[in-house]
Structure formats: C-alpha cells, structure tokens
C-alpha cells in the first residue's frame, strides 16, 4: 500500500502520448521559470569556472581550461590553502550538526503529539521561534553567551569541564562547535515544522487501532509514526546535508570584519567553502571570479556525491 504502483501500461499508444503532453504541460510553469532564472545563470556560472573571469574582465573572458581547478586543489596560494582548510572544517561541521539537529527535531516532532491540546499548540509555536528570529541577532545573542570568561553558556560548559578558559570563537574546533550550537538552535525550528506536519498526515485510525491493542505511546511511535514518516525524514535529512554543506550565514556573522581576509576568524577556524567563494568574488584578484566559480563547482560535486549516496542507500533499504 505504501509503494506506488506504476501506471498500468495497458493504454493504447495514442493516449499515452497525450498523457505525456499533459505531464509536460504541468511541468511547464516551473520549468519555464527554471530555465530562464536558474538554469541559465547556473550554466553561466559553471562555464565561467573554466575561464579567467575576474573583476577586470568586463565581459571578455579567456578560456583557461582546468587552471582554476588545478590551482585550488594544489594547496599552493592563499585561496587554495583557505579552501582546503574550509573543506576540513566542513568535514567536522556537517556530521555533527546534522546528527544533533536531526535527532532533536525528530524527537520533538514525535513527542509533541503526546501532549494535550494546549501543550501541543503552545510548544509548536515555541519551537518555531528561533527560526523566525533574524539570524543576525540570533547569532549575536549566542556570541554574547559564549564570551570568554563571562558568557553564560561558556561558563556553563566550563562547569562541566568543556572549554575551560577557551575563547570559543577564535579557537580551532571550538569555533566549529559554536557554529553547530547556533545552527542547531536555529534550524531545528525549520526541520521540526516539516516533520510535525508529516506526523499530522498519518491517519489517526492507525493510532486508535494500536490503542485498542494496548500499545504505549513509545510503541506507537516506533511502529507506526517513524515508518510512515520515513519519506519526510529522508527529505529533511537530504536537504539538511545540502544546506549544511553550504553553511555561510552563521560563521559569516560571527567572524565578520571589514577586511575580507579576516572572514572565518584568525587562522580560518570557522571558514567554510561558500565563505571562501564569496571572498574570491570580491577580492579582485586575477581569475578571482573564475576561481570562485570553480570552488562552487567542486562544492557542488561534493554535495551531489553525498546526495546520490543517500538516494542509493534509500533505494536499497526501502
């Protein structure tokens, strides 16, 4: 019942073609806008990664083949070193933030159904508020909380032995965890909303039947909710990866300074790929924009790989 049955192929040829036409018609609005406003700039951006596009180009670029890519992956040169460091930071950041964030969001979405009507309504609004707050001030307040020495949260952590006397924002590894902290606080609201709506789509009849069989709420969760929620969980996790790999706003706000080289903090402790891309866009160095484009394409490749792995993994297990 869960799996979608493929459309029966018993229709005669003519009406199949007509069916296809209908399909394309339905897709037309989306794809016409997509073609113009997304595909064209997208292809343009990718194409530019093979050129020496820079601030001085003024529309005339020269084809340079894989030069930008070779440069970035070589490890020689400021931008290359920074980009490779940013990838290393990503390696820590992504799994940690997704693991913690997704667990919390899923747990909340499951638990909240067990509260009474009033509790449900109240907490649903509460859990969403961090996502509604502009990220600038959201990150800002956590910056205050993590002030070395006097910040409330950093003091709390120090009490349980984590990060004693550490300046979180400017120290390697700790900086990444600071970003994780803020990201989980902020993005859980988003993931919760989707998962919560997903739980609402499950027929209450199933729960009633389980009640009659004497199931506890934990058992209901485990055997009804989670399996039926699987497509949505998959989507949230997949999108979570895509989004976490492109992390930008929070570390940018935390390390923002007037000089482009300072973004990401001293020693690039919280530098991530998209931030390095942006730096190249504004730097004005030769091939600067071309390099930014190449960095974008490399990142895109990584994201694509991870997403494909996820789709493959799902197909095997469902």
């Amino acid at each position, binding site marked *: 019942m869960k799996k979608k049955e493929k459309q029966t192929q018993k229709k005669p040829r003519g009406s199949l073609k007509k069916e296809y036409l209908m399909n394309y018609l339905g897709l037309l609005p989306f794809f016409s806008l997509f073609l113009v406003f997304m595909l064209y700039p997208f292809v343009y951006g990718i194409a530019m990664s093979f050129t020496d596009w*820079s*601030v*001085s180009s*003024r*529309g005339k670029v020269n084809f340079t083949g894989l030069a930008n890519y070779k440069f970035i992956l070589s490890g020689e*040169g*400021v*931008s290359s070193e920074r980009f490779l460091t940013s990838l290393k930071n990503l390696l820590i950041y992504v799994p940690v933030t997704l693991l913690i964030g997704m667990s919390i969001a899923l747990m909340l979405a499951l638990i909240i159904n067990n509260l009474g009507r009033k509790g449900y309504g109240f907490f649903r609004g509460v859990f969403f508020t961090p996502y509604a707050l502009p990220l600038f001030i959201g990150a*800002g307040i956590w*910056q*205050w909380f993590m*002030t*070395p*020495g*006097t*910040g409330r949260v950093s003091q709390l952590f120090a009490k349980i032995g984590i990060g004693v006397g550490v*300046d979180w*924002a*400017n120290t390697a590894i700790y900086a990444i965890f600071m970003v994780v902290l803020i990201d989980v606080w902020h993005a859980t609201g988003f993931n919760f909303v989707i998962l919560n709506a997903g739980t609402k789509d499950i027929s209450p009849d199933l729960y009633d039947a389980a009640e009659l069989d004497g199931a506890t709420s934990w058992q209901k969760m485990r055997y009804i909710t989670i399996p039926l929620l699987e497509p949505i969980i998959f989507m949230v996790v997949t999108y979570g990866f895509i989004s976490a790999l492109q992390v930008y706003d929070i570390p940018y706000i935390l390390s923002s*300074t*007037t*000089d*482009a*080289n*300072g973004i990401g*903090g*001293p*020693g*690039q402790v919280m530098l991530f790929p998209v931030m390095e891309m942006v730096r190249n*866009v*504004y*730097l*004005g*160095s*030769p091939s600067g*924009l071309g390099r930014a484009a190449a960095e974008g394409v490399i990142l895109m490749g990584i994201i694509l790989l991870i997403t494909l792995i996820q789709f493959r993994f799902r197909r095997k297990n469902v």
Partner: protein
Amino acid sequence: MKHRNNGKRMIALILTLVMVCTALSGCGKGDDSGKKASSDGGYDLVFWTYSDMVLNDQGKLMDQWVKEFVEENDDVNSITVVAKDDADLLTSLMAGVGLPDMFCASARDAMSFQRAIDLLDLTPIYEGDKEWADGFYKGARAAATNDEGKNFAVPFMSFVPLIFRNTDVLEKAGIDWKNEPLNTWDDFYAQCEKVKAAGIDATHSWSTGHFTCPAGILACDAPSLTIGHENGKTTVKPEQCVRAFETMLTMEKYSNGTTYGSQAATEAFKTGALGFLCAGPWTEPDYQQAGVHYDIQLIPAYEKDGWTGGCQGQDWMYGVDSKDAGRNDAIRRWLKKMGSFETQKAFTKVIGRSTLRQDVMNDPEALTLDVAKVLSRGLNAGMPQMEFGHSSVFWVSAIADVAPRVTSGELTPQQGAEEFIKAVNALYTEAGE
C-alpha cells in the same frame, strides 16, 4: 469537504487577482533612465552612498547639499540618493548594469572599481581649481591619482582608531587622567597596571579576532616601515615589525579575554568594568548615551611626541563615465561640491567625523568636538590600511592571523614578524601584484 474546497478556491482566486494587479502596477520599465538629458533639459543623477549618510543628522546634511546643488545648477533636475553598502555596491558594479552616476565607497576597493567600470576622469576638477585641489592631505590625493597621473576619486572621509578611557575607572585607580594623557606606550602600561591593581580589568585583547588593534600597534612604527611592493613581494622587512609584536605580547597581560569590537568589551567599558577601549570614532554616541565619563586618546607612540599609531581607513567619492559630456560635467560639479572646504567642514563640525581635507582638519573652527581634535592629530601620524588606489592587497590584515599565535606563546615576536611577512607576500602573489 467540497464546501471547504470552494472556499479555498475563492480565496486563491482573489489573492491571485490581487497579486496580478499589484504586479502589473509595479511592473515598470526598469531603471533604464536614459543617459541623455530628459525632455525639460535637466539631468536626473543617481548617487549611491553609505546607508548612514541617508539617516538622521547625516541624512539631513545630505538633503541640504542635494537641495543646494540642484538650485545652483540649472542642468540638474534631481539627485536620487540610494543607500548601498560596500558589498552590494561592488556586486552591482561587477554586474555592469544599472550603474549610478556617482558613488561614495571605501578606498579599499578602488582598484576593483577601476578595473570593473569606467570611472570618470576627475582631473579637470583638480586642474581647474588649485586651491580646492591643494586642500587635501597629500597622501590621500596621491592615492586617488592613477599611474597615468589622472585623478579618479575625491577623498572624502577617514578615521583613525581611538582609545577611550573610562575616567571613573581611572579615578578609582588613582590616575590623574586630566593631566596624564597616553603619550607613550610606557604611560599606557603604567596606567593599565594601576587599573589592574584596583581590581578592574584594564582592556580587551589587543591581538585576537580583528586586525585593528595589532595593525594599530604596527602603525606606530610606520616611519621605519618601508611600505610598498615589488616583484610580488612586500618591501616591508620582518625586523621592522618585531617591536610591534613585542608590544602586543606585553598588552596581552592586561587583556580580559574579550575581543576588539565585541559587544561584551563595549558593555564592560560602559558599565565601568573595563578601563580602556579601542574603538572607532563613530562609536562615541554610544558612550554619551550611556552616560559614561570618558576621554579620548590616540594609540600611543613609543617616545613622547613620537609617531602615534592606528591604521587609517578612507572613503572616497567616485564618478562613473556616462559617455555624455554634459552629464559628466554635472557629475564633476557634484563631486567637486562634495570635496569642497565648506562641505567637508560642515561634515566634521556637525558629525564629528574626520575628512580628508587637511585645511579642514587643521581649522580650529571645524574642530568643535573633542573627537575631531583628537582625530586631527591622529591623521598627521598613523598609517593607511593599505596602499589605497595603487594596490588591491589589504596587507595589514594578514596580521590578524599571526598576532594570536604570538600572544599565545606559539611564536616568538621575531618568528611572528617573519610569519607576518610571509603571509603578506602570499597575499601579493594571490593578487598578482
């Protein structure tokens, strides 16, 4: 179910209709204001500038200048002022479309501007009025001149970072602050010691998190720094920077762990929990509003009456070549007005920000506010953040990565200086200079 459907459909339909109507009414022909004069013979110019110049007191001044200009110049109908900050502005310029007629932006990006668009040649203004042209600081004027001797910008604003002292804290520490300014670094160390002895934090970290403080210290050595670059390397030598790193190391003793510019440091200063705060002049209203008792000092020199520190940022005004002679002339007139003695004097007098006209900054009438007096002294020393107008490399910023490693003990000052020069060279290589 059907009833709810119909209701939803109705709402959706109405919303769509409303939206379509709004869309049609909002659908203009775009910003393609013709570059030729409009039918009644006047130009409508567009001026992009920093967002603070359109708000509050600065906004009122700007409105007044626009009004004056439009009245004085018959061929200009109007000037539309649009708020655009650095990153937006650069992105828009790089896209090459929808360019304004003139804009005010940081001098840091001057090279990018020159490369991305055709800046208007402003030499006619300089050559046409010698008194006007000579009023600027020589350094700023030279920076705004390109290699072919053509002027491409009008220097407008500048700043030097300052040290604010919480005089209540100083009094508690037994310092006679009225008679003890921060003349030398030794004075500064002594006062920090006294404040610490009184049980109050002296200052924030002068090495972590931001380039302003470490670079400000480096600027005290500006006379001995051979600034410049050739063959892709800086001409500054490591041994010229060692003293700066040693100073940073000493200052770290007095740090309370917070970083320059952080809210925590500022709030500590305002509530009397911090004695000395390094900050930009624009932050002064914050302390006034909080009722703090403070005075303003420059980053000290190494000897009495020596070279004080602090890196200068500069903002310039540029014009965009419109290919229309009449329009270009109008643009030049506006830029001339912006760079004029009267305009910049009003700016300094009313707002308290320092401008790049030496004749203004040395005119006692303009220096009505204390902060302006201090800035005026500071502008005669210090060091520009970078080689404005002749390089795109923000070389002092490399110090932000190295300074924390020196103060944490990972590197000695000598090693720190060498790492710094290495990092600067890497930046020049990246920029292809």
